């Protein structure tokens, strides 16, 4: 609704407001703007007595009344098993089935001859007879409605169904001033035939937060706590939310400057209404850490923090955001998030490509490459939605060659260059049309339509029919390991033959054989995505020919499906995904841009503008529609430029608010008046521990290569024996399996606390010989014992050194080989590395990633264990001060406060072993809440 409309009707609003308990009411413009016949009186008046000639309508009166009386609820006859052999459609939108159930023969539910004997009249008035208790009084208006309908013959024809054009609810918005106030809603149904009816008494009502606004069965809204929420009105297929707001403090005139950014204006306007004062913008220290972790999933380095704090330019925050957007970690982190939303799950891709963990790696890299190049969001989605297995003009042989290459170690880079990412369609949990309908709506629309699979969606307009028609769109798409286009079948056979695979080899054996062959450098056959439209044409032709032969006429129809919310049929004789994609990127699409905006927003705020982020429906309106509209329109106008979106959000004051609260915004979680602390995601926590404990030299390398970091692709750590997955599981990375953004958890747990305090991973990192503690203490000539790691280590030291030497020489040999030979040997080297890596892992030693070693095999040379314990005195308190500062910077991204510095220095001074003390200090900082909670 336009603001101007509200202004136009303000005089009427005030009049209404005075009539109803002195509350300011904003009335709907629709009441006055439409030219319609005056609406009829409420049904309770019309049917107060039996003295009426009106016949109630099944759609408009009887079904809604049954809903109002609770008959078609889930606990009663709306249950899938029904109750007492009588079943109604849940929420009553299947008129035909309900009518049939009511009139079923020999049930006596509706008896047009002995009207009063009809069970639907006799039972609900009698608590004894009816298991569901008494629902209405005899001779009440409800009774009279049902009675009159039966007396008239209990009629209904599906062809008589009428279109509800608009459900007009007044007031459109409610503002309360104190607890205990009430406002009565009025609901008018406007039908396509031009008639209007007051249906207030026939609607269902619900409240999104009854602590703030409770709503009674009759549509009376009662104010409770301060805050804002929506009450929702349901009638026929309409779902109308009404905002209810009770200010926390006296509403403010305005708190934004004239030069405020659009997001801030929209947020502050809402806060003004609520009387909430926004927290000020956060400190530079908080900002640099927050934005780096949110935008790139990576801790800022100590040097970076120092430089940022020292920078005195006024636009340094915006400048820093631009720097971050160009980092490799930006693309890496958001490819992880996009992998979450698109459902990149190795377990579901198990049999699609030869080799374990290959498919999800390719999927991830394909996304990462595009984010790094800032390919627009709609193009990325197009590459997934309309994906073909083969590139333009690629024949089957070339395709298999390219995919074989892609499936070898390091091959993801070449896959990322391919046009499409068809793996999305290959998942096991995405093979049925209904699963695809649900998954597609989840991923690209942020809509949960699964309810409509069985019954009308209770919170949205979707009917079961809408769901079925939408599902049909996905029927022609097929993708699995065996599916191959016609023109490739011959080649596929040939390839199998040349690999020495006979036709009886199938299933796991075949996959194993193919995986081996790929690693040996051979080209193996691949399945591909096929769109089964040609068949439809042929089948139709066949049917036609047959029919002609027999001289019969048949109704030959091309199968169709429908896009959600679209009346037009999409014929399935061509790839329906093209139509789907056109619809997605059309500026009119009500969900596509909003879904991604909302998810990106939630990454920065811990809560979506629509919350939950994947549940956009009519009954769950955005907490601030203006912000969502601004950003989604802006995204479309900027050609779906994701970096525009990130920048627009992160430069806003709204994003940069401090976590400190004031009296008015203490309880706020959904109006963005302050920063709401949250636990960082699993991958980010994992990497933060890594970066905080690594030596400066290691950090420098890792932030460029991202090697070993979980944000690059947590899944590639599966089964690699690197011991990192445990942490990721404990901290709730997304399982990516149930079409729900809640697959990722940011909830804290006991096990997480145990992990950070006492897991062997943590002790090992703190005591790592090439880690920061050793490095920084080494500079001071202070010894660090391997406390916390297995002491049998000393005995195995020699073995470790020996094995490392072997690997090192293998790698150096490899590096000397000519390129062609390297190509052949790469997988062998990889296998050797994996073997040694696993062996070393078993005795508590972690190897650097292979890619890193190839660049610098010397990484494996034993580090000089520099340090002589007797020289501890060398270090003075000044140098320890620098260490404490560094420890703070690399964990909490800030300098210690005076008292913190004193506490830390005193702790070090008092400790007999200085090296141990530094380790303990770093341990303590890793275990502060400040380390894993955003602020």
């Amino acid at each position: 609704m336009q603001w101007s409309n509200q202004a136009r009707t303000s005089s009427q609003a005030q009049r209404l407001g005075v009539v109803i308990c002195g509350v300011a009411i904003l009335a709907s413009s629709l009441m006055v703007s439409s030219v319609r016949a005056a609406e009829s009186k409420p049904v309770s008046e019309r049917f107060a007595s039996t003295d009426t000639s009106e016949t109630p309508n099944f759609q408009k009166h009887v079904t809604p009344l049954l809903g109002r009386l609770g008959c078609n609820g889930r606990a009663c006859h709306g249950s899938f098993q029904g109750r007492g052999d009588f079943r109604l459609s849940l929420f009553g939108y299947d008129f035909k089935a309900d009518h049939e159930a009511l009139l079923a023969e020999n049930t006596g539910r509706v008896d047009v001859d002995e009207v009063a004997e009809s069970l639907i009249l006799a039972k609900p008035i009698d608590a004894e007879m009816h298991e569901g208790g008494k629902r209405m009084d005899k001779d009440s208006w409800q009774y009279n409605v049902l009675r009159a309908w039966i007396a008239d013959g209990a009629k209904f024809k599906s062809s008589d169904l009428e279109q509800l054009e608009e459900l007009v609810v007044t007031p459109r918005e409610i503002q309360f001033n104190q607890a205990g106030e009430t406002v009565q809603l009025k609901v008018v149904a406007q039908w396509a035939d031009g008639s209007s009816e007051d249906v207030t008494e026939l609607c269902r009502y619900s409240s999104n937060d009854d602590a703030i606004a409770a709503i009674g069965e009759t549509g009376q809204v009662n104010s409770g706590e301060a805050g804002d929420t929506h009450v929702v009105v349901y009638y026929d297929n309409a779902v109308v939310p009404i905002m209810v707001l009770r200010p926390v403090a006296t509403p403010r005139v305005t708190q934004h400057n004239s030069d405020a950014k659009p997001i801030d204006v929209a947020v502050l306007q809402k806060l003004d209404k609520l009387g909430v004062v926004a927290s000020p913008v956060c400190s530079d220290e908080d900002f640099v850490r927050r934005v780096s972790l949110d935008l790139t999933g990576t801790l800022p380095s100590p040097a970076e923090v120092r430089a940022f704090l020292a920078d005195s330019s006024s636009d340094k925050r915006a400048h820093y955001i631009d720097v971050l957007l160009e980092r490799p970690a930006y693309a890496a982190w958001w490819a992880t998030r996009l992998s979450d939303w698109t459902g990149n799950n190795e377990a579901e891709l198990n049999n699609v490509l030869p080799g374990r963990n290959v498919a999800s790696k390719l999927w991830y890299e394909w996304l990462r490459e595009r984010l790094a190049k800032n390919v627009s969001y709609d193009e990325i989605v197009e590459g997934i939605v309309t994906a073909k297995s083969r590139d333009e003009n690629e024949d089957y042989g070339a395709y298999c060659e390219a995919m074989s290459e892609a499936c070898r170690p390091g091959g993801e880079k070449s896959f990322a260059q391919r046009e499409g990412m068809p793996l999305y369609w290959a998942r096991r949990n995405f093979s049925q049309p209904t699963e695809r309908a649900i998954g597609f709506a989840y991923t690209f629309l942020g809509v949960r339509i699964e309810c409509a699979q069985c019954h009308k969606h209770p919170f949205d307009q979707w009917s079961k029919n809408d769901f079925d028609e939408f599902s049909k769109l996905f029927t022609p798409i097929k993708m699995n390991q065996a599916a191959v286009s016609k023109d490739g079948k011959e080649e596929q056979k040939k390839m199998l033959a040349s690999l020495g695979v006979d036709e009886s080899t199938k299933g796991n054996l075949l996959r194993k054989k193919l995986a081996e062959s790929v690693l040996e450098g051979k080209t193996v056959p691949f399945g591909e995505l096929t769109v089964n439209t040609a068949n439809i044409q042929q089948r139709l032709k066949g049917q036609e020919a047959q029919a002609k032969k027999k001289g019969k006429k048949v109704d030959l129809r091309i199968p169709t499906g429908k896009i959600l919310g679209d009346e037009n049929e999409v014929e399935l004789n061509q790839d329906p995904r093209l139509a789907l994609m056109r619809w997605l990127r059309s500026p009119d699409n009500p969900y596509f841009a909003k879904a991604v905006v909302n998810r990106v927003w939630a990454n920065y705020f811990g809560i979506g503008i629509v919350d939950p982020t994947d549940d956009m429906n009519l009954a769950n309106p955005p907490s601030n529609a203006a912000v969502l509209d601004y950003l989604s329109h802006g995204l479309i106008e900027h050609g779906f430029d994701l970096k525009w979106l990130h920048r627009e959000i992160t430069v806003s004051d709204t994003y940069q608010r401090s976590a400190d609260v004031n009296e008015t915004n203490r309880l706020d979680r959904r109006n963005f008046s302050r920063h709401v602390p949250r636990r960082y995601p699993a991958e980010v926590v994992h990497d933060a521990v890594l970066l905080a404990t690594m030596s400066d030299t290691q950090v420098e390398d890792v932030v460029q290569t991202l090697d070993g970091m979980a944000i690059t692709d947590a899944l590639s750590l599966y089964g690699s024996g690197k011991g990192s997955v445990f942490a990721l599981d404990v901290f709730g990375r997304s399982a990516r399996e149930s079409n729900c953004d809640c697959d990722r958890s940011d909830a804290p747990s006991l096990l997480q606390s145990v992990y950070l305090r006492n897991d062997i991973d943590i002790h090992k990192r703190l005591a790592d010989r090439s880690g920061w503690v050793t490095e920084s203490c080494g500079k001071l000539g202070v010894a660090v014992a391997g406390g916390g790691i297995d002491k049998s280590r000393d005995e195995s030291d020699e073995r470790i050194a020996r094995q490392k030497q072997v690997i090192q020489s293998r790698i150096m040999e490899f590096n000397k080989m000519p390129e062609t030979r390297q190509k052949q040997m790469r997988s062998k080297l990889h296998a050797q590395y994996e073997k040694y890596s696993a062996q070393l892992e078993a005795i508590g030693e972690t190897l650097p990633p292979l890619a890193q070693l190839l660049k610098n095999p010397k990484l494996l040379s034993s580090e000089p264990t520099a340090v002589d314990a007797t020289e501890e005195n060398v270090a003075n308190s000044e140098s320890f001060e620098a260490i404490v500062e560094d420890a703070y910077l690399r964990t909490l991204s800030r300098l210690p406060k005076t008292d913190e510095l004193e506490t830390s220095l005193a702790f070090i001074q008092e400790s007999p072993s200085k090296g141990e003390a530094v380790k303990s200090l770093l341990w303590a900082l890793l275990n502060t809440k400040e380390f894993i909670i955003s602020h």
Partner: protein
Amino acid sequence: MRFHTTCDGLRRRDMLKAGCIGLGGLTLSQYTRLASAGQVSPNRAQRAIFIELPGGPSHMDTFDLKPDAPDSVRGTFKPISTNVPGIQISEHLPKLAAVADKFAILRGVSHTLAAHQLGREYVNTGSRPIPSLEYPCYGSVLSKERPGEDDIPSQVAVPKAGHGPGFLGIRYASLETNSTPQFGQPYSVRGLSLSPGIGVDEVQKRQQLLKKLDRRFAEFEEVGGLVDGLDRFGEQAYSMITSPRARKAFDISQEPASFSKLFGEDSFGQSCMMALRLVESGVGLVSVQLGGWDTHTDNFSKLKDTQLPKLDAGLSGLLTGLEMRGLLESTAVMVTGEFGRTPKINDRSAEGGRDHYPRCMFMLMAGGGVRGGQVIGESDDTAAGPRHEAITPDDVAASFYWNLGIDPTIEYQTNTGRPITLVRDGKVIDKLFS
């Protein structure tokens, strides 16, 4: 607090979300409220031990012998009498035969899932697996319904959980030991035990330093309980790491050899003993696995030489030990594989083997309100199916929950807000408790 919407039009405050704050999720007052509403009953078994036999143990060579069946089916094992008149079990389970009064045998348990993974999911949850939704295992439900104490985990799996917390979420996942205890040797668990080189002194010193430095959110006012929750978990972690309770409970070397020998000297037996120690110390549910039952070949020698002696010693030791310590009445015990094995003996190896067979299997129940020394259900002449009405894994699950004072028809919401009945199709087997 978030709302989740459900398909059926209900909107409820999200109990699961709220649950992450307190350990196990319920405050005492919530618990009392549920107790008075009949959703949990304080008067039955308080804790549980779930013994899983992955691979699928042969029913007719263990607890459901058919001495009169034809050669092609009967097998080489003979039945022996137990200490309960009329009940016979395999000759290779003599120790269990001597304590048959302590457990109930369910025969003719039946389902249709002949694949290991699906079968295991079924018997670990009591609900037939469906693709769209993963049900929680017993321990996760118990740790949600029964909050534990600070310094002891609420659920432990030795060495691995047969099934996860499903839709209840990872916070209800069990603590997996990842290894099994060995006879006579000290035992510890990842993260819970102090690592070599770090003493309690050191941990205490670090904790004191942490307390001094962890000031950022000290005065912080919050609604969501995040800071509060982290503080609580931090304290619990500290308690668990430093308190001897959890460590002691895990450390089986504290038992005298005379006691630990009751369980057999292999790792399964010692795991059973550790399970006893853990429930004794306040752990809600301990799951223990004994694998190796997938006897497609050499069924009889594998059972006779390896599997049955381990099961016999470990389980009889557990039941005896629980009774000795006065824990049998407060500890519900359930033993199951994912299916039985084919009555017909295959000829894939010299002595023959048996294949997957879900239509007929056995399960065992003991402890809590279960009346031991009885057989419930019956299989037909060749142990090929239930003779009368089948007992389903759902029924057994319902009974297990019932034994623990948890209403099996309690309704949960999945993380997408779908309403789910805990045990979808099960009926409590009244006879178990009569």
